[in-house]
């Protein structure tokens, strides 16, 4: 066991974990941040997507020891209280979710995309989102929601 000081959603959090523990399980088990999901454990599905210093990473394949002082942002940290992140709002406006399980990972991937590329083309969207699986098949609405958020940002 080792002790790590993580910066999660703007707060400093101390956790005890063995060094190769994936950040996913530290978030879920140690910090009870259950918005980040397990889907495959091998960087194939994107359900576990969080941001490290704003860049999307697969938390299932990111050892806690590799996080260092990079800022961790999870779905719980992208908005607070009543106000939603514009991407979350776009997700609501397009009624994207079906079962909802993959959606936090999708939203985290989409936020990272829009922050880097505020007006993504179809193929930019497809590339950025290709690592995120949705078994309910909400892909069309995900694309629409990203475009809606991008238009809102452009205004």
């Amino acid at each position, binding site marked *: *066991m080792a002790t790590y000081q993580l910066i999660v959603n703007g707060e400093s959090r101390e956790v005890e*974990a*063995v060094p*190769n*523990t*994936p950040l996913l*399980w530290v978030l*879920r*088990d*140690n910090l*009870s*941040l*259950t*918005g*980040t*999901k*397990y*889907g*495959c*454990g*091998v960087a*194939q*599905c994107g*359900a576990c997507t969080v941001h490290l210093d704003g860049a999307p990473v697969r938390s299932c394949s990111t050892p806690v020891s590799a996080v260092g002082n990079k800022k961790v942002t*999870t*779905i*719980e940290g992208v*908005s607070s209280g009543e106000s*939603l992140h514009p991407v*979350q709002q776009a*997700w*609501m406006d397009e*009624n*994207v*979710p*079906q*079962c*909802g*399980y*993959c*959606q*936090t990972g999708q*939203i985290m991937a989409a936020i990272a995309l829009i922050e880097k590329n505020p007006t993504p083309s179809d193929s930019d*969207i*497809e590339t950025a*989102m*290709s690592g*995120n*699986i*949705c*078994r*309910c*098949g*909400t*892909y*069309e*609405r*995900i*694309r629409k929601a990203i475009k809606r958020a991008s238009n809102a940002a452009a205004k």
Partner: protein
Amino acid sequence: MKTDIYESKIFKVSRRDFLKSTSMSMTGLLLGINLSCSDTSKKLVGNPDYIFSPNLFISLNGNGDVTLIAHRSEMGTGIRTSLPLVMADEMEADWSRVKVVQAVGDEKYGDQNTDGSYSVRMFFTPLRKAGATVRLLLEQAAANEWGVDVADCKANNHEVFHSSGKSLGFGYLAEKAAALPMPAEGSVKLKEPKDFKYITKQSSIVDLRDIVTGRAKFGLDNNHLPNTKIAVIKRNPEPGAGLKSFTSDNAVKVPGVLKVFTLDAPGFPTNFNKPLGGVVVVADNTWAALEGRKALDVTWSKGINADYNSLAYNGGMLNHAKAKGKVRRESGQIDKGLTSAKKIIEADYIVPLLSHTPMETPCALAHVHDNVCEVWAPVQDPQGVRKSLAEALGMDQKAVTVNITLLGGAFGRKSKPDFVVEAALISRTMGTPIKILWTREDDIQHDFYHFPAAQHLKVGIDENNKVTSWLHRSVFPPIGGTSDANSKEASGAELSMGMIDLPYAIENVCCETHESPAKIRIGWLRSVANIHHAFAVGCTLDEVAKARGVDPIQNVLDLLGNDRTIDFNSLTSEFWNYNEKLEDYPWSTARFRNVIETAKEKSNWGKNLPKGSGQGFAAHRSFLTYVACVVEVKVDANNKIRIPKVDYVVDCGVPVNPERIKAQFEGGAAFAASLALKSEITVKNGAVEQSNFHNYQVGRMSDSPYETAVHIIESNEKPTGVGEPPVPPFIPALCNAIYAATGKRIRQLPVRLT
């Protein structure tokens, strides 16, 4: 499959009993009601602590807060929203004043087994009546209060209005309504469809905000029990087979690992509700459990399926399909028809084993303590889970509470209780709450798979270019084989999903099967046997069109014949109408024709497309819903298949929640595209060869339709389900489009163009 899947459990509580319990029971439920929001002006509120619970599903407190019970499981269809909306509409409740509470698994709610696309079909009318009864009681209470005739009182948006204009709030009326006798059943009037406020109108799901903010609770998201431990199980790669020996020396050295022990294997057939057994690792946290499992050293026993190789097995099924089999439906004289035919179309179709792979793997939280068992789990059949838990633990069902979380997808996988039983057995051993995690590897290697299937079709066309003979042989291991070794041949219900329910007016029809014992756990996957039957029938029809030299849609309309309802019971004693009588839900070729003709028009069928692109068509009735589908594909130089456009036309009777119907069809198209283009499970020496999404591939954004247009037929027919019906016609429409684009016939899934 026959007894415990489709045929008996659906009607555990008959509709009559259900109505009684919804409209007559005064006991109701005591619910935790949030008293935050209250009406203050005019007489809107009454005693805030008073709860009026006229039936199991609806309660109203003195503040005017309404609580509606969702008793079906939410796995992404929107049912947790749609059925409460139905009650709210009939009750004239203001949707913003409604809180939806998920029921626990309990027979008192009637059927809770959320599969077979029948939630809306079964509960639309009973829940309308439940809502309308409450509306009538509130109107009567207001009439009494004013000393006027109830005929002059009308509920509207959470208040009852008198014709003079005065009004009283639902909250104020709650206690007074509770004092009234239940109205006679005949006096409860349902709304006219034109007066619907929520039914057939757009609305968002109740969990939307929680989902996008990460607050929604799925199977592993409940952390409220102190001292919860995490368990994973190493299972024999040959499902059902046992354990020879193991050493846990290294596993217990992993920091955080608490205990390693075994669960007995069930043998094969495994049964639906029995866990597979194996070596259990319990740890303080998930990673320790996984690392501990990795460090186990296990030697497995061989079971009776140790020589099962799917490639050889499927080849064997195909050989059978080519030979005369057991007749399941027959009219005319097939041999004569085929020998006298001028043209013969003959084709074989193969569909592999397929896995459900919901994004959320099977999982559960269980706590067995003080002679009770409590679970929180994403399950489709909470009453079945309760029963299985009681059996496994030797407890009375009353001691077992099944709380249903949101399901992170299910597609049929979570209608089995095996993973919840595992959690409970482990909790009993450990004496602590247990969360069980199935990794994706566990999920893909130990699923209840969609049957592998081989089919042979032979169609005869006479000298007048008329289709006169249709021979269809279908060979696949029945679902029943998972629990009963004597069940070796497809059941009538399984064949009524796209084979013996063939609606075409053809003189000589023969449907045959062969035995094919299950070698692995088989279960129902979204749309079940319709998947492989619709594929074979839909693609064969396209070949027939080509042979006849007519347009594929015209070909199907020609074969359909005159508008009529088909009495399938007179064609075969094995016909199954999804548990409904044909009188109640007739097989209407007129409705089928209508969706087909509408699809032709809406899809701009026959439009000019560049080389490498094509349109394909198929239509299919399943789960009593009529669907036609046109798929457009574009195949590039690297044989990458793109799906720019899909047009669906659906007749599902009254479209209760059109927004979610559209979502189910968009998602159904993506799900079907995934099955057709990407997925295949293979088995070698009894063990599944795939393990995660790198080798059991599923559709991603670029594999899925770019745009799915869903055209819903306006209808006042009884509503029918939409969860499964999008899947069956999509796959043949896609394959027919690939043929139109490339000239290549697809007779085996997944599609391989090279």
